[in-house]
Every structure is written in structure tokens, then in C-alpha cells.
């Protein structure tokens, strides 16, 4: 039972109402100059991109098994049961491993601040936990961005593809990518044509590091026995050699 966002690129008219609503929700300035920026950054947590005559929207995917949450050494990032991936800036020490690890290159940094924080969309955790829609979904005039239960949105996406097979590329982005994401995409064309990364594994990324990390107790215990044993043997040998040498 987790929340998600369905973004239907075929319906998006590029009005950027979602951007304005998002900026308002975060208390960030939203000027024409900022509106013209087509990439997410520390002062713009969602951005509508133009790809020829199509639009695509970038925001945090709020992954089901987020790489950022697994790599954060201080646990500043958490995946909530509700769905959003939330960030605690008071814990963050600024190692930026979340940014390196994110397959969607979403987290942004306040590079020019003396006491910087990371910034990213948290799928309006506050609003959603009070039963409200995300600011972007509420603002969207054409229903290109929908907010609801992930299962229901997946069913809706499948319905749309089945109803108009000619108008959709026959896949939903975010179902399997890196173990599934909370943001789902529909598109008329293959996803790489609207700027989405398609070389992602279906395996959740945290597995890649956990496979090694879970060996740590074994390495420590086996290593202790092995090194301690080797020391005991070689040292004994040295002691014996020393004593025999003396006797001669």
C-alpha cells in the first residue's frame, strides 16, 4: 500500500504548473528565468523537459528500494512506508554518496552554501501523510500527473495502453527499473527519447553493495582465526628456533 505518481507524457502540455506548485510547496523562488531552466537543481526540484515536440517531467523517483537510502552513512535518507523517500538535513554530513549512487541523478546539492544540504523531491510526504495530493498532481490541469496508490496507478496505466495501443509505447517505465520506482511514466515513444535512462538493471541497486557488506562478519571472524593461527604457528617456530640456537 504505497503511494506513487503516474506521469503520462502523452497528455502533458508543458504548462509547468507542476513546477510552480512545487516551488511554492518548498518556499523556493519561481521566476521566468528559473522556469526556463530545464533541469532539476537545488532550487528546482521538478522540471519539465522538452524533447522535440514531447514533454517529460523530472522529479525524484522515490524508488521502492532506493540506492540513496542504502548508501547514506548516517541514515539521513529513509524510505517511508507511505512511499516517499524523505531526507533529514540535520543528520547529513555532506558526503554526497546519495548523489553518486542515484541512478537517476536526482539529488542536488546547495553547492554555494557554507552550510549546505542535499535537496530533492520527497513526493510531498507531509501533504500525503495528511491525505492530500502531491502539489504537482493537484496543480496539473490536464491529469498528466496523477497521485494515488501505486497498484491502482499501475492498473490505470495498463488500461490507458490497452485502450489506445497506437498512442502509447507498450511499456510502463518504473515497474521494474532498479526494483521499481514510485514514479511511473507513460510515453508515446521509447523512453530514451524522452530522456529517461534505459540501461538500468532490474535488480535493486542496494543488493550490489549488500552482497559484499553482508560478508563482513564472516571476513572478520574467519580472518581472526586464520591470522591468529598463523601468528601462533610462526611465533612458536621462532621461539623454538631461538631456544635451540641458545643450546648450541
Amino acid at each position, binding site marked *: 500500500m504505497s503511494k506513487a505518481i503516474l506521469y503520462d507524457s502523452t497528455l502533458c502540455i508543458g504548462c509547468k504548473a507542476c513546477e510552480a506548485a512545487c516551488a511554492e510547496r518548498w518556499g523556493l523562488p519561481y521566476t521566468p528565468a528559473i522556469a526556463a531552466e530545464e533541469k532539476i537543481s537545488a532550487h528546482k526540484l521538478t522540471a519539465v523537459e522538452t524533447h522535440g515536440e514531447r514533454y517529460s517531467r523530472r522529479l525524484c523517483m522515490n524508488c521502492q528500494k532506493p540506492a540513496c537510502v542504502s548508501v547514506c552513512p548516517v541514515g539521513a535518507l529513509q524510505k517511508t512506508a507511505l512511499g516517499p523517500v524523505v531526507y533529514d538535513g540535520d543528520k547529513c554530513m555532506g558526503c554526497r554518496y546519495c548523489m553518486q549512487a542515484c541512478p537517476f541523478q536526482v539529488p542536488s546539492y546547495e553547492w554555494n552554501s557554507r552550510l549546505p544540504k542535499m535537496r530533492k523531491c520527497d513526493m510531498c510526504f507531509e501533504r500525503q501523510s495528511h491525505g492530500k495530493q502531491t502539489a504537482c498532481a493537484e496543480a496539473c490541469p490536464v491529469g498528466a500527473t496523477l497521485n494515488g496508490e501505486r497498484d491502482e496507478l499501475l492498473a490505470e496505466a495498463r488500461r490507458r495502453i490497452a485502450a489506445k495501443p497506437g498512442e502509447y509505447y507498450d511499456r510502463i517505465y518504473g515497474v521494474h527499473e532498479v526494483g521499481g520506482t514510485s514514479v511511473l511514466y507513460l510515453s508515446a515513444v521509447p523512453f530514451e527519447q524522452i530522456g529517461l535512462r534505459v540501461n538500468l538493471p532490474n535488480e535493486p541497486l542496494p543488493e550490489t553493495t549488500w552482497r*559484499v557488506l553482508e560478508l563482513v562478519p564472516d571476513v572478520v571472524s574467519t580472518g581472526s582465526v586464520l591470522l591468529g593461527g598463523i601468528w601462533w604457528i610462526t611465533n612458536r617456530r621462532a621461539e623454538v628456533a631461538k631456544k635451540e640456537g641458545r643450546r648450541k
Partner: protein
Amino acid sequence: MKRKFPKITIWSAIFAAIMASGLYATYLRIFYGLGGSTNLSDKFPWGLWIAFDVMCGVGLAAGGFTLVAMVHIFNIESYKPVLRPAILTAFLGYVLVVVGLMFDLGRPDRLWHPLVMWNPHSVMFEVAWCVTLYSTVLFLEFLPMVFEKFGWNRPLEWIHKISVPLMILGVLLSTLHQSSLGSLFLIVPEKLYPLWYTPMLPLMFYVSAIAAGLAMTIFESWHSSRAFGRALELPLLVSMGRVLAVVLSFYLWIRFLDLLHRNALGLLTHNRIETWLFALEIALMAVPMVLLYQAAIRLRPGALYACAVMVLFGFIANRLNVGTTGLEAGSGTHYIPKWSEVAVTLSIVAAGFAIFRAVVQYFPVFEAPSHAKARAEVEEPEVVLM
């Protein structure tokens, strides 16, 4: 022979220039943030300070645990004369890594957070703990040199009592975090170029760190013998050259097997910057490996030194490739460090050399503890040479 008389002035001038630029870069870092002092960006969040100051710094300090294991666990007594310089290098190395981290972290005042706010699923968390604990171990391994210097025998005995478990702990911690620096990049299969991305990254980092540690020991032995007019421990270094050749062979062989089994060898036919950087990195390891198998090369101090330097550069090239260049294409951006990033890095390296030199002059680093009585005679000429 070019640096005979003007040696001190030239090197002091270079040192002063580097430190001055580093100071100005530090000012930029503090008052203008990472944005004002680095070329990092949202798409490229890690640069020189992580790839060199941290990843190379920790690796070049690997001589500490390698020699502790050889001398105290495998009980190969003959390596004892280079054990203390290796421990000192390692201790200094880790201190400087922390200094580098203070520059790189957005909030250096929160350096201690991972010790309190745990996330065992994070490789970085594991590295933070290992580096903290291992720095403590290195400090304790370094302490006997201080105690001996001042003739404090009681604490010296205490340290000797815990030395075996301490050294085993040190080797284990090093094994964990040397490999974990490679594991850091397991999370970016879609970004790191496949010549470098492999599930075997932790093993590759571990083995190459051992090679770098040995090369660093040869390197500093050679330099300190020149700087302090000390006799070079040549037979010892020759035998170490042998070990280095074997470690390099093992390393290059597993690199090859890994590429073979991942069907990645075909990538070498692509005319891309990554191919050339990979070739450079491998050549800097393969050439000294071949050379070190020749007795005639090993027995010539200059050639042995040259081989060690090549290995060090090969190691640095590898870490920079994994930490920066190998990530550029996958991140869809380019990164060239800003001058201030280079200035800070050079300052840290220069400070490392200067502190090493100073410590070696004041503490009994270059002598086995059993020869404590000979210390007085050795110490005199060292002080004169200052």
C-alpha cells in the same frame, strides 16, 4: 645530480608556493563553499578530493598493514627495518585522509555523525568505522616510537602486551576498508565504464592496495636514505621487489580474468578515452612487473626505485579512473578539477612529506627497537643534516 647545492632552496620555494596556494584554496573552500572551490556539480558530485586524497591516500598507506602482517604475523623478521617507516607512513596517510575529507565533506563539523547515526547497509558507514578504528590502531602502533624516544618503559610494556591482538585487528580492519573503497562503486553499474565496473571491485582494490603499499615502502626507503645519508636496506628492498612482482602478476592476472569472464575484452578495440586511460593504468603496472622479474633490475637501486614509482602512478591512475574519469561518460558530463582542488591536494601531499621528514628526525623510526643502544650514534648525524 641536478639538486646538489640549491636543493634546499628550490624545494623550500616549491613547498612554500604549494602551501600558499593551498591556503588560498582553503579560504575559498570555507567562505565560498564547494561551489566556489571545486568544479563539482549535481551530475558529478565526487572529484579529486575523494578520488585522490581519500582513495589514493588510504591505498598508499597500505604498506602499514602489509608489513605488520609480514613481520609480526608471518614472522618474517628480515622486513623489520622498514616496518616502522611503513607504520609512520600509514598513520600520517590516514591523518591526511581525514584532512582531505574535511575539505570534501559539505559539513566537516559533522565528521563524527557516522559513529553515532548508524546505517550498516552503507559501505561508507563501514569505511568510516574502519578508518576511525584503524587510525586508532595505527596511533597505538606508532606510540612505541614516542615511548622509546623518551625512555618511558612502563607504557612501552603495556603496549607490547596488547600488540598481537592489536596488529591482527589492524590487518582485519585494513582488509575490510581497503576493499570497501572499491565496494563504494558497486552501486553505480550504470555509470562506471565497464572496463572498471566489476562485482570484483573490492578484491581488485585490496590486491592493488597491497602492491601500492609495498611500492610506497620502497619509495620512501630510497628517499629517506638519500635525505638522511642512511645506508639503503638494499637486500631487503630487493626481496621486497620480488614480492611486489608477484603481487602485481596476481593483480594483473585477476584483472584479465575478470575482463575475460565479463566478455569485456572487446571494449579494448573501441577508440575511446577510457580505452587509453585503461591502457595507461595497466602499462604502469605491467612494465614494472616485467622489469622486477629481472635480477639485474632489482639489484640496481635506481631501477628498483623507478619500478616502485611506476607502480605508484599505476595505482593512482587506477583510483582516478574509478573515482573520476571512468564515471564521466556514464554521468553525461565532464570533470576537470578546479585549480583550488589541485592546490589543496598538492598541499596535503607536501605536508605529508614535510611531517614525515620531521617525525623521522625526532623519533626512532629507522631502526629496530632491539638496537636502541645504537640510537645515540645514529641520531647525531641526522640532526646535523637538518
